[in-house]
């Protein structure tokens, strides 16, 4: 039982971790708190559905097209039209705008369908009995693919030139500017990466819970909690925070309460805010600007 819960928790947590990573990437490179992160996942899931279900394209082609569209709309257009102009007027405007965008996305998805949509996956959704437990191929795929995406992201950031430039921007925008890094382009790159991340989160989470227009709300909340618990300014923090939220959720539902798992998670988050506001693995931030 416990082993099964650990796998389930890891699979759920891996998705939160992915989302939280995109979240902290945007925060680090552009001081953007994206309240629409959950809705971005929902949007990516529906874009995928349009290609796969409505246009009957093959899975991999649908995924590639979804990534292209997501990078365009949720990455570049979102940054150029909304964030870039508002960030000058302050963080509060950005947050208000991303909340408004989240409402916008949620309520436009409903025009595609208000129903829960079965979402395709490359593996079977049937659980396989294995010794004493039942192993879900979906969970295994989620863990593997999430790990792969996270590792690819780490490799990109640490080994490639644009990745290193991105890191420099995240550490200090002004210094990066002086060093001749095109900060604006790097920020757009961060938004594009985030769009790719949410697309992967979408194809992982949607087969488990089915795609629904309002799926983003709870997802976005969990990703944000994961970022808070793990630490906002550390990619590693997002990973650990995401996994922790996954375990807390699964174990609370299994052993404590299914109705009030939300309460337990929020209480833990409040505890972290009270006693370790920079997150469990986060470092204290030095504020280079008034936010």
């Amino acid at each position, binding site marked *: 039982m416990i082993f099964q819960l650990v796998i389930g928790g890891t699979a759920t947590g891996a998705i939160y971790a992915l989302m939280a990573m995109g979240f902290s990437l945007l925060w680090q490179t552009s001081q953007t708190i994206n309240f629409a992160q959950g809705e971005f996942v929902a949007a990516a899931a529906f874009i995928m559905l349009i290609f796969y279900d409505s246009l009957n394209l093959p899975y991999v082609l649908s995924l590639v097209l979804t990534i292209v569209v997501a990078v365009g709309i949720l990455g570049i257009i979102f940054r150029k039209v*909304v964030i870039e102009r508002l960030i000058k007027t302050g963080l509060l405007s950005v*947050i208000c705008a991303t909340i*408004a*965008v989240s409402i*916008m996305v949620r309520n436009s998805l409903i025009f595609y369908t208000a129903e829960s949509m079965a979402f395709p996956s490359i593996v079977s959704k049937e659980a396989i009995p294995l010794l004493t437990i039942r192993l879900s191929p979906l969970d295994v795929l989620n863990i593997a693919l999430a790990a792969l995406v996270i590792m690819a992201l780490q490799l990109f950031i640490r080994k490639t030139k644009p990745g290193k430039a991105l890191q420099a921007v995240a550490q200090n925008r002004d210094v990066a500017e002086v060093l001749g890094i095109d900060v604006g382009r790097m920020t757009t790159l961060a938004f594009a990466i985030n769009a790719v991340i949410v697309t992967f989160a979408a194809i992982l989470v949607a087969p488990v819970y089915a795609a629904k227009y309002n799926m983003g709300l709870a997802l976005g909340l969990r990703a944000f909690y994961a970022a808070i618990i793990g630490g906002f300014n550390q990619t590693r923090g997002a990973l650990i925070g995401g996994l922790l939220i996954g375990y807390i959720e699964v174990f609370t539902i299994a052993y404590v309460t299914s109705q009030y798992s939300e309460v337990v998670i929020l209480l833990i988050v409040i505890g972290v805010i*009270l006693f370790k506001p920079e997150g469990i693995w986060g470092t204290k931030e030095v504020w280079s600007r008034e936010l």
Partner: protein
Amino acid sequence: MRVSKNTALRSFLAKAWKFAAIAAVLLIIPRFLGIYTIYVYSWLLVYLIAAYGLNLILGYAGQISLAQAAFMGIGAYVVAILVTRGISFWIALPIGAVVSFGIGLILGFPALKVKHHYLAMVTIGFNFIMYKLFENQEAITGGYYGIFDITRPSIGALRFESDLAYARVIAMIALVMVIIMYWILNTRWGRAFKMIRENEVRAQIVGVDIRAYKLIVFAIGSAYAGVAGGLLAPLLGYIEPTLFELTISFDFLLMVLIGGRGRFEGPLIGVVVVILLPEFLRITNQANLLIFSVIAVVVLLVAPEGGASLWDWVFKRLTGENPPSLTK
């Protein structure tokens, strides 16, 4: 001394006349409305109170609360539970406000400890949780079906049972709440709020305890939602959990953004747009939210003062003066 006292009295009298005039208008309007429009009028005024609360939090403390609906729910359930057990509405309503205020303090304390905008996320979670509590604590809240037979208030032999009479009760309480808000913003407190909004660091340097102020502001804003909920319960005669869903909290945010956050006229403009526009358009709730979220983003991008900037323009055209909230 004598002179300044005199002018203070005179300015108060001048304002009192204005307030009396507004009160008269608010009392007369429902006389000319039909059954349904009286209901919309009452609904609008109830939402106005909660929107003023959020405007205080957002516009004057620079914090986002997405739990206005939950605090409305707290006020509504407190009033419903007390009134159905025979306690006077006039006692129940202040209790509802105080409970909302207290819970606001408890919730805001951790969230406002840090500089990141954690309050927004914590309040989303809180709204989720309150909804679940309303739905699942059947013994107290009536669960999914809610609480029925919430009677409307009376004073002695004067009963506010009819829609018209109760609309007037709501109008008067809404006016009092708006006047209190006006008063708050023009006391030393209010000036501190504005200072925090304009420059947090400077406010800190001159000795304003920012966190305490933000906490008080959040609690007051939540209490406003509590009052709104307390008025809503007898208006409908019943309450149920879906009235206090998270999406309603999003409605309030859109209202304040569209009206112009931090502007005194903002909530009025926002509520009128968000409540009345759907009445004319007659479209689904989702389409409404879509339209309003688009308007809100456009407002943020193009005119951060929102509907209030349009109001400024009209006011200046008509009177040649700046509107009252700008001259302060």
